[in-house]
């Protein structure tokens, strides 16, 4: 072997070694909370307190990850899902978040619930550079990658929904006179802002009546009477389920038949439309992004069958008419999708990077055509909605899937 050839071989061998070495390094990179066998995921839910109805989301997620673990985990790693109760009280949320990050040493906090609790920990999570991934609230402020690069929302935000309704009104009823009823809190105000932004310059002239109610009011009948008197021909109904059902009923009693828009918070057939009476709810327009389990048209749907099988085996006591169970099923798939995409590079930075590069992902349970999309500047994974109209005893989809992206 000539000296030059020898050198070449050595060089080649060296190159090979370094290449494989760096490949091995690239293969396995961990931050706190991830190892060869386990990924620790933190979660905070109001299992007790005023919002405890949402606790089923945490339970469904725990059941879902148990199923994933039984199927072999994610790239061979089991999910260790640690979920704590915060009572929907922000100080407690801070305590639990710190416990998860500093004591349990989780890789990330996933789907923590509620606008006030998440606001309380947002600064802390971003200071610590721990992902606060797919928060369970519809407020608009979570889509703010510039100021809060470690926080990401999940569901379509409230504002984007009314932006979509506004676009529909401008296109199909440009001379409409709109009456708005909204709940007097952050949720109602977010919706109202979206409507006004969507109508743009015409908002002032098109909205002829605006009325708000308090959650503590027993009935909203008087508000409906007042709105009817305004002579409006479009009714924007921004109310939570109990009040939505009252409004639909009262409209029918008064014989007021405006073009009725109902926010999707109250789109459940089981808990709103049925109690209000099918005959009173005909032609109401709303929007959806996932399949309503109480809607008969999905009975033989593949995703619905898979959902039912999952619940049969891992969460048999779940209330299947509760939309939260479907919500949790979908968002859990979202997390698994992100963790799979991370491969063996389970650093917090890579988690955020993968979460911010989802392309046209369709977890089971979303409506046809609705897709999850994110980018470095778009931290709102779901921003599409399908307009639906109530016909007979079910929601009928119409038009295309619409998008109403709004930044925080």
């Amino acid at each position, binding site marked *: 072997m000539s000296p030059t050839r020898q050198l070449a071989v050595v060089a080649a061998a060296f190159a090979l070694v370094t290449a494989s070495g760096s490949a091995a390094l690239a293969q396995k990179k961990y931050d706190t909370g991830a190892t060869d066998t386990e990924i620790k995921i933190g979660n905070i839910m109001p*299992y*007790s*307190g*005023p919002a405890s109805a949402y606790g089923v989301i945490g*339970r469904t997620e725990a059941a879902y990850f148990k199923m994933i673990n039984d199927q072999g985990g994610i790239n061979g790693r089991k999910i260790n899902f640690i*979920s*704590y*109760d915060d*009572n*929907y*009280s*922000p*100080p407690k949320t*801070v*305590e639990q978040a*710190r*416990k998860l*990050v*500093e*004591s349990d040493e989780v890789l990330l906090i996933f789907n923590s619930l509620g*606008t*006030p*609790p998440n*606001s*309380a920990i*947002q*600064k*802390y999570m971003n200071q610590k550079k721990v992902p606060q991934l797919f928060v369970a609230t519809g407020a608009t402020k979570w889509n703010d990658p510039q100021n809060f690069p470690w926080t990401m929302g999940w569901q379509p935000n409230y504002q984007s929904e009314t932006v979509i309704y506004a676009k529909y009104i401008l296109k199909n009823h440009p001379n409409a006179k709109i009456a708005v009823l909204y709940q007097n*809190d*952050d949720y109602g105000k977010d919706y109202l802002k979206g409507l006004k932004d969507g109508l743009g310059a015409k908002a002032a002239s098109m909205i002829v009546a605006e009325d708000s109610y308090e959650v503590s009011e027993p009935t909203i009948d008087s508000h409906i009477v007042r709105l009817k008197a305004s002579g409006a021909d479009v009714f924007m109904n921004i109310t939570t389920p109990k009040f939505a059902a009252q409004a639909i009923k009262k409209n029918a009693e008064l014989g007021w038949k405006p073009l009725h828009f109902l926010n999707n918070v109250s789109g459940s057939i089981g808990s709103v439309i049925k109690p209000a009476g099918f005959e009173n709810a005909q032609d109401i327009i709303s929007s959806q992004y996932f399949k309503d389990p109480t809607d008969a048209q999905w009975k033989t749907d593949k995703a619905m069958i898979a959902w039912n099988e999952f619940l049969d085996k891992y969460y048999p006591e779940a209330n299947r008419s509760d939309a939260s169970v479907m919500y949790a099923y979908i968002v859990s798939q979202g997390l698994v999708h992100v963790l799979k995409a991370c491969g063996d590079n389970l650093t917090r930075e890579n988690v955020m990077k993968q979460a911010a590069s989802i392309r046209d992902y369709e977890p089971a349970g979303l409506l046809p055509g609705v897709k999850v999309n994110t980018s470095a500047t778009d931290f709102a994974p779901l921003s599409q909605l399908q307009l639906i109209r109530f016909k007979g005893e079910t929601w009928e989809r119409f038009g295309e899937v619409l998008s109403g992206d709004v930044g925080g």
Partner: protein
Amino acid sequence: MSAAEEVVTEAPAVEAVPKRAMTLGYGTSLAVLAALILIPLFVKNFIIFQMTMLLIYGLAVLALNILTGGSGQFSLGQSAFYAVGAYTSAILMEHAGMNYALTLPIAGLICFGFGFLFGQPALRLSGVYLALATFALATAMPQLLKLGYFEHWTGGVQGLVVTKPDAPFGLPMGQDMWLYYFTLAVSIAIYVASVNLLRSRSGRAFMAIRDNEIAASAMGVDVALYKTLAFGVSAGITGVAGGLGAIAVQFVAPDGYTITLAISLFLGMVVGGVGWLPGSIVGSAFIIFVPNIAESISKGLSGAVFGVLLFLVIFLVPHGARQVAIVAQQLIAKLKKN
């Protein structure tokens, strides 16, 4: 006069506690103090944060203890004073750019005034009726904080984010540790002041009212003044605790100050021993840690487990930590004799 009312006034609201039994001996006090100073040097930041919260809730329980254990008046409205203190600190820090340490006395003063004024109508009420009146205050407070008129200041339902202070003078410690020692210093000052207050003329007046209002007024105690004063002092200390809480948690929102908080503080007082000031910290530990223990036993039934634990405590040691301390003291005395 109805029979019910007679029952209420006849039943001793609070058992008489002699004033010497209200504090700890010097040796024990020093040991506790040493533990509180040294432990944070060896534990994680998260534990330091929990200890900070322990002191803060301890202060709030102490405040209630002065009111109930000292002057014999009930309050389920402490969460309202706590909220006012928290919001005062948060607003002054975030909107007026004031130093966090300066906001605390202001929070205390505002709450003192608030409590003193609330004490005026409360004068006409006693026992369960007073408890109900304060309960109303606690339920009203979160909604008041959401009101549109104040929204510019309070941030409405969204709340306010508070910046956590760094250690001053370039001290080599983290934010959590600095805040802990700061809180500890405030707590010790308030504790010492409270002990002295109860030993003073005013404290004797409080206790005279607690034990027998008619006898107290016959002895020349201005019942109305001292009753409202007790409310004011209690609210003032709670306000300082609220301000510290806002700084430690870095966030204030109406949902953090619901009636649940008021009941927790009440619970802390009972578990710690009504009228026994050092018990406040034991009560505070109970309301912070026992729900976590209950949750680790059963997530779905955490409330029920908590209830069972609480029931056991009330059943086995009805006088709370004070009873445990007395038993321990007697045991030690026995050992010393032998």
